[in-house]
């Protein structure tokens, strides 16, 4: 429930009491807001008094008479000026001249209510004002939240790029000053580390570009009829060298071609991330089994590894941007923590999702489901 504070400023006591009475038990439903909006009315018999009250705490809505003894309504508006932008001003007046109306509007008046008005007219005007206020408030909250998320994202990106740059910078300084002695093998190893860190940075930048493409929805999807098994095979070929280097066996289990409509690049991103994780977070001489199946118009991709596993309490975090689990087994594995968040976002755009079951020390199984024809429009 929400209560909006209404200040009615009029020199006629009857008018103030009338407004108070009309609004006392009145509430409105605002679309997109849970619950009702009520009004709490305060009264001021002069602009001077209103100014005092506004200075203490500005109301959400000000019902303001134009003609007042002493300071006029317009003068009051000019006095409060831009200080109280949150206050929505509704002018009430018997004979508002065009000139006065223009001046009031210039000072930010939102609406006019001609005297005399019925309680129903007052309620309609306030209903509209309340909707305007609440929606504006929500838009502001949303904009702030968006900003916060964006800044947080940028600061993480900056931090993630700084780490490899610091490492490379460190190596270059040592090489430039020849500070590591005379063994050329040591310098060769440094060069190799620099290249590894640069490759990591490049991968992260590519992931970032994938992410922004998916999220902005700007990329034009190239939908084609393809065989999901064939894409799986391509991804597994890509991972083969790093798997072989650690004696890890890769096997694809698929009975027959599995036709689906998809963007090949996007499907490759999904497979590549799952398979590369299954290799990266595996033990030496482990296994990776990839299953591709089709049931009832859905493709199910399962990637099962015999690796380090994931603790139950960490499972829910994995699919967020930049999440990497830090522990003894993962500390020398490079990555930016974007892979699974990309997989999840893509799966959702294909009308599906991703889930994981895992046993620490034994292995993990990631399952992605996708619609075979995700973007088909019913004929």
């Amino acid at each position: 429930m929400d209560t909006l504070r209404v200040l009615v400023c009029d020199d006629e006591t009857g008018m103030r009491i009338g407004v108070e009475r009309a609004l006392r038990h009145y509430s409105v439903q605002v679309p997109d807001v849970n619950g009702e909006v009520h009004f709490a009315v305060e009264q001021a018999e002069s602009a001077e008094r209103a100014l005092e009250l506004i200075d203490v705490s500005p109301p959400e809505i000000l019902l303001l008479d134009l003609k007042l003894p002493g300071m006029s309504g317009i003068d009051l508006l000019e006095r409060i000026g831009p200080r109280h932008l949150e206050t929505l001003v509704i002018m009430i007046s018997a004979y508002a001249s065009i000139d006065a109306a223009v001046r009031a509007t210039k000072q930010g008046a939102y609406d006019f209510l001609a005297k005399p008005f019925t309680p129903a007219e007052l309620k309609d005007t306030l209903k509209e004002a309340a909707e305007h206020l609440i929606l504006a408030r929500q838009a502001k909250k949303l904009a702030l939240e968006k900003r916060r998320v964006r800044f947080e994202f940028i600061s993480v990106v900056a931090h993630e790029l700084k780490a490899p740059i610091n490492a490379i910078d460190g190596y270059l300084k040592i090489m430039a000053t020849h500070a590591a002695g005379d063994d050329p093998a040591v310098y060769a190893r440094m060069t190799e580390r620099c290249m590894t860190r640069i490759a990591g940075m490049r991968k992260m930048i590519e992931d970032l570009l994938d992410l922004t493409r998916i999220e902005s929805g700007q990329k034009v999807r190239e939908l084609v009829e393809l065989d999901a098994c064939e894409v799986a095979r391509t991804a597994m070929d890509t991972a083969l060298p790093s798997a072989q280097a650690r004696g890890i066996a890769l096997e694809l289990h698929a009975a027959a071609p599995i036709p689906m409509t998809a963007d090949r690049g996007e499907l490759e991103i999904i497979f590549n991330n799952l398979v590369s994780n299954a290799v990266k977070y595996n033990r030496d001489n482990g296994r990776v089994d990839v299953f591709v199946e089709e049931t009832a118009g859905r493709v199910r991709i399962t990637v099962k590894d015999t690796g380090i596993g994931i603790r139950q309490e960490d499972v829910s975090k994995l699919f967020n941007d930049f999440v990497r689990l830090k522990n003894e087994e993962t500390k020398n594995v490079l990555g930016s923590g974007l892979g699974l968040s990309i997989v999840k976002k893509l799966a959702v755009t294909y009308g599906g999702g991703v889930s994981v079951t895992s046993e620490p020390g034994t292995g993990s199984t990631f399952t992605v489901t996708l619609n075979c024809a995700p973007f088909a429009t019913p004929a």
Partner: protein
Amino acid sequence: MTEQAKTILLVDDDEDFLFQQKVQLEAIGFRVITAGSKAEALRVIAGSRPDLVIVDLMMEEMDAGFTVCHTVKTKDESIPVIMCTGVVGETGLEFDAVTDEEQAWVKADVLLSKPVRFEQLKREIDRLLAS
């Protein structure tokens, strides 16, 4: 170097930082043992007595460096400890081993913020090993 080479235990979970400091320290005549985690560091400390320890504050756990530092000082108060930290500016935490009270709590002899300049590290090592 005429005397026997001094042994430095270097603890950090950043593989590149370990490698960089190690080769530079070796080039100026130290013997260097590296540990990539708190657990590894504790194993080394249990089985040997390094002449000096350089440890990163934040490893898998936020305060792994403290545990290492504490273990070293409990074993032998006279082993100097240099703590490196990226905490300042990284997490917004203010952190400095200035006051005696803080120094007693942190237990490290010197606190260096990352990125560590090797010249500075070397100066601190020379100073601590001379005293």
